[in-house]
């Protein structure tokens, strides 16, 4: 098909599957506006499905894609038949002038990133040295222990503990393109970033005033480090997108009962866990915080969120079982990471890890102050209301930061090498998560301020606590 037609066709399949999965919960009035969410949901679910088929011995290719796509589509349609389509309306809003200017900027940046994605060969050597070759091997041999498990007979792949969603999607891109073309990785990243922006915009549309939402998205998508990584071919951008959408989806389900957001949560959780090893702990961490906050503020919605999380983790069981069966060790053994004596012997690593990771997260030339902005808005909201829920978004990012620092602390590789080659990209999920949570917090802050009598707007005077959760 060639690069452009091939990658576009593959993503059309993802969109089709995504719409089928979203069908039971999709507001009929605004179907087209959910195309980005459909792409992310379909891409995550289809990639995970084809990866599981590869574990079962099916080569990654058109046949396995067709089988998985048909299965998922049939599942979505069957649920719609049984439960019917939702009568809910999609939240709507009028685009204001400030929002229109931001939208133009957003479209400009995304267009350039998308064009650049199709025209660039990945600069990160892990992309063409590990992710894509693994995909080619999945295409040729499925998940073959000769190549994917350490042995003395064949040359096996490095980092065998990494899950293979990104390699699977890359292999499908190559199959659709018709030849080994490294640009499929960046092209796919460009499309995923555009779908990410569209998903966040759609999920928050009508809930956050357009100028706040769109300017925040300009900050997220215009972050120099995101744009740079979009041409890296690496798995950190998809992981970041999945983790951010998992967190945003969970928050919107708990706060608003948005069922599209719940499906996005389940699919993106599965996608994150299948993309990189750190995906599972990061999803677990966000889920735990969301469940804790939900138990206090939206108890009736907690079981469904727990179920979405359980679905996401259940999809990873075949990969974990395969790893266990082939005795593939973790790069950061849990035994070491939980051993106080082991950690105490290397405390010097902790400070350097904390400083380096924090430096990347706070550097305005990398992530345009997304994390500091989230911290400021969280603290402002908490100061006004004295409600601890305001601190939850900042808290989950802080916990993610602590998790990463702990992982570098416990890792066995040379720390300088490890930090220098990976810290700038392992923070991507945290930066994107912070970025997507800024807009709803700013909106809540503005609403609180508008609802507060003028004489009480001095921020040093706490607003009386009404005991009610933040409004949707």
């Amino acid at each position, binding site marked *: 098909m060639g*690069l452009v037609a091939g990658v576009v066709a593959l993503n059309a399949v993802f969109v089709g599957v995504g719409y089928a999965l979203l069908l039971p919960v999709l507001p009929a009035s605004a179907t087209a506006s959910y195309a980005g969410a459909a792409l992310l949901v379909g891409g995550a679910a289809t990639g995970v499905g084809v990866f599981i088929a590869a574990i079962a011995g099916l080569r990654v290719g058109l046949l396995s894609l067709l089988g998985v796509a048909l299965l998922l589509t049939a599942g979505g349609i069957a649920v719609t038949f049984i439960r019917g389509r939702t009568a809910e309306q999609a939240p709507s809003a009028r*685009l204001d*002038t400030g*929002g*229109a*200017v931001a*939208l*133009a*900027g*957003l*479209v*400009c*940046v995304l*267009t*350039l*990133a998308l*064009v*650049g*994605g199709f*025209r*660039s*060969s*990945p*600069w990160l*050597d892990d*992309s*063409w*040295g*590990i992710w*894509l*070759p693994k995909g*080619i*091997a999945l*295409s*040729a*041999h499925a998940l073959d222990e*000769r*190549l994917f498990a350490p042995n*003395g*007979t*064949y*040359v096996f*792949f490095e980092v065998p503990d990494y899950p293979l969603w990104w390699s699977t999607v890359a292999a499908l891109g190559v199959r659709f393109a018709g*030849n*080994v*073309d*490294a*640009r499929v990785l960046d092209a796919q990243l460009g499309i995923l970033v555009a779908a990410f922006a569209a998903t966040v915009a759609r999920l928050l549309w009508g809930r956050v005033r357009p100028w706040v939402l769109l300017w925040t998205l300009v900050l997220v998508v215009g972050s120099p480090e995101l*744009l740079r990584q979009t*041409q890296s071919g690496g798995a950190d951008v998809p992981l970041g997108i999945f983790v951010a959408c998992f967190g945003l989806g969970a928050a919107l389900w708990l706060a608003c009962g948005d069922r599209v957001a719940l499906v996005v949560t389940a699919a993106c959780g599965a996608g994150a866990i299948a993309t990189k090893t750190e995906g599972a702990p990061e999803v677990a961490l966000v889920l735990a915080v969301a469940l804790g906050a939900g138990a206090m503020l939206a108890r009736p919605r907690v079981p469904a969120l727990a179920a979405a999380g359980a679905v996401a983790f259940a999809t990873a069981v075949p990969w974990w079982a395969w790893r266990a069966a082939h005795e593939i060790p973790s790069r950061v053994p849990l035994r070491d990471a939980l051993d106080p004596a082991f950690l105490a012997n290397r405390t010097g690593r902790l400070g350097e890890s904390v400083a380096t990771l924090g430096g990347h997260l706070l550097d305005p030339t990398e992530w345009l102050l997304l994390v500091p902005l989230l911290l400021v808005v969280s603290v402002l909201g908490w100061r006004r209301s004295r409600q601890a829920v305001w601190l939850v978004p900042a808290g989950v990012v802080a916990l993610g930061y602590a998790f990463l620092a702990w992982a570098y602390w416990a890792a066995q590789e040379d720390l300088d090498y490890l930090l220098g080659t990976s810290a700038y990209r392992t923070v991507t999920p945290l930066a994107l998560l912070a970025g997507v949570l800024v807009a709803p917090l700013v909106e809540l802050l503005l609403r609180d301020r508008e609802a507060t009598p003028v004489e009480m707007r001095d921020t040093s005077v706490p607003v009386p606590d009404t005991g009610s959760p933040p409004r949707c």
Partner: protein
Amino acid sequence: MSRSATAVGAGLVLAVVVAALPGPGRRLAEIPGDGPDPAYDVPLPEARIRDVGEQLPDDATYLLRTPGATPLVAGNLKAAGQLFFAPALPAQDERILGWEIVYRRGALTLRRR
């Protein structure tokens, strides 16, 4: 025309203008663009690598030898082999070896064992 359609149109026009001018927009749009081969860390015979991949039988096992090459060259070639020589399998054990691919001073040769 609706405000959102105007904004999207303006964004597209802006993208074209920015891509046409020298600067970060042009770099982001990757003008001029790259080819389909990986951005190797060192110069490698890209066409010859694809050619060897075409010649290797699908059921082959091969060993890549890189005498005198730096670890960086050897590592890049290993990855190139995994990309372009599949479905042939890269072997470590010489007892199962069917083919040998030798890289020496920029030239790649393929021979049956």
